[in-house]
């Protein structure tokens, strides 16, 4: 039992991530609003399609606003709830808007005691014929947005393009993190091999690189599937996609190099040297280059990083354990490979 505790821990952590990651509902969101553009000076009706929403519960207390970035807001005059998912909001737009351009994107905000507040950021464009700030200030019935409700149950954030695929954060991203941890471990064992000249250290380096390659391939495939339904293509020539493909090529080359030697000592030595050199040339850049160029991934070229916005505290509760879980499972698979190669090498000696 003592020997197995970390394997059991890994499985338990992964089970936890699968349960939490799949069963926790998404926060209520607005998936659609039509028409997307309104005109000033008219009474316009916007049909809103909610996601995971329960508009019919406590529908008298439903409130809605059109909000400007500067905080000015216009409350909906009437709200007709069609069913749990659909509601019709009627806004009385004054003829002049408190903006200095003809067209401006407004944010739609709905608040319900059941679902909490949900937003459609910059989702609705409003056009006015002439700009007149003085008249607008007089006409604009500014509504105070206050006493917004919070949904009480545990939820994951709702993002319009992502939808439920936000859960892939726990199944795709941790594979990369685990891959890096494991490849780093492999590099460390290569260093140990060169210092101590111990054949077992080389076996460990090889086993860990092998698992790293597996995790990398799984990461690329899962990433491609996710990309198809978020960005439209399996392969979008995104910097991170390319860089990780390079990482896989390098580790592929590592195994080709090893395979081309007969002598086990030479194989181990040259392999270790290449492993360290390749790691040193690649890994710093994997962190730096995506930050320099534009990327579709978060955390690069003006995109929001995995900061407060993208990874909220409920997501962290699943995301970080998932990294540890995958690393432990990777180490387990690595250990099996290690034992296999040990067995093979002992057989060769006989």
């Amino acid at each position, binding site marked *: 039992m003592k020997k197995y505790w970390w394997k059991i821990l890994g499985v338990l952590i992964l089970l936890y991530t699968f349960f939490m990651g799949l069963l926790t509902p998404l926060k209520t969101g607005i998936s659609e609003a039509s028409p997307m553009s309104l005109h000033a000076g008219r009474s316009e009706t916007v049909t809103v399609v909610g996601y995971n929403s329960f508009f019919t519960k406590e529908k008298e207390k439903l409130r809605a606003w059109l909000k400007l970035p500067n905080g000015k807001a216009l409350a909906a005059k009437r709200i007709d709830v069609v069913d749990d998912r659909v509601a019709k909001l009627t806004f009385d737009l004054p003829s002049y808007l408190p903006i200095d351009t003809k067209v401006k994107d407004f944010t739609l905000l709905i608040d319900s005691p059941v679902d909490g507040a949900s937003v459609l950021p910059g989702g609705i464009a409003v056009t006015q014929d002439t700009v007149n700030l003085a008249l607008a200030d007089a006409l604009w019935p500014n509504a105070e947005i206050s006493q917004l409700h919070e949904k009480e149950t545990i939820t994951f954030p709702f993002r319009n393009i992502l939808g439920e695929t936000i859960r892939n954060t726990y199944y795709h991203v941790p594979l990369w993190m685990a891959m890096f941890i494991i490849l780093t471990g492999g590099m460390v064992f290569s260093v140990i091999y060169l210092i101590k000249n111990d054949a077992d250290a080389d076996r460990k380096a090889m086993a860990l690189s092998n698992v790293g390659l597996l995790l990398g391939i799984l990461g690329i495939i899962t990433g491609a599937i996710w990309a198809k339904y978020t960005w439209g293509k399996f392969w979008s020539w995104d910097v991170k996609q390319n860089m990780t493909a390079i990482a896989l090529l390098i580790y592929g080359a590592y195994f080709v190099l090893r395979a081309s030697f007969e002598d086990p000592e030479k194989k181990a030595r040259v392999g270790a040297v290449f492993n360290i*050199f390749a790691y040193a*040339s690649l890994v710093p850049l994997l962190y730096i280059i995506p930050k320099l160029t534009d990327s579709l991934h978060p955390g690069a070229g003006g995109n929001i990083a995995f900061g407060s916005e993208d990874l909220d505290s409920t997501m962290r509760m699943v995301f970080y354990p998932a990294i540890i879980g995958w690393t432990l499972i990777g180490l387990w698979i690595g250990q099996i490979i290690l034992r296999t190669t040990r067995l093979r090498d002992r057989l060769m000696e006989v």
Partner: protein
Amino acid sequence: MNIFTQIFYLLRKEITLEWRQKYALSGILLYVLSTVFIVYISFQNIGPQVWNVLFWVIMLFASVNAVMKSFVQESGYRQLYYFQLLHPIAILLSKMIYNSLLLLLLGGLTFVALAFIAGNPVQDAGIFALTLFLGSTGFSITFTFVSAIAAKADNSSTLMAILSFPVVIPILLLLVNLSAHSIGLLGSTDIADKTMLLGAVDLILVAMGLVLFPFLWRD
């Protein structure tokens, strides 16, 4: 002899050897010229963006060919002789320096040939020269070290390409990016950052090479 005199003598030996068997050098120069010509025939009209990419791709392939021979083509007896006589760091450094010079020459020639045939889109010559310098040292460091690895195996010429291309791609990306600045394709905001990054990468690779080479050498 201390390491510096060893490096000096080795460097002189490399240059004399190269000068004596001119066919190797002229072979590479011819390789560059014919590649540029083929590229010209196939593209006819080369815009600045394509020019930039083509320059570095031609440079990449020519460099692999030029550097490959540095360890692969030396006979085992000669290596044994060096091993008994010289410090491994001197051997590696002299090859790296020699190859940097060779690649700088190669880069200059590629530039002249490409500029002659397809026009010269470079606006900021200083940055371009700096990029070329950093690029040829980066290529030389990576390829020299990889050729030392590949020389240990039997099918070394295939291995050379397999091992070196993935390792060099990050450097290549930075180079294309930096030289795009000199051509005026990108705004010149973070040139200093990128130059420093490239220099840092070169330094890391040299350091790794110097630390690791003695292990490779031991036979």
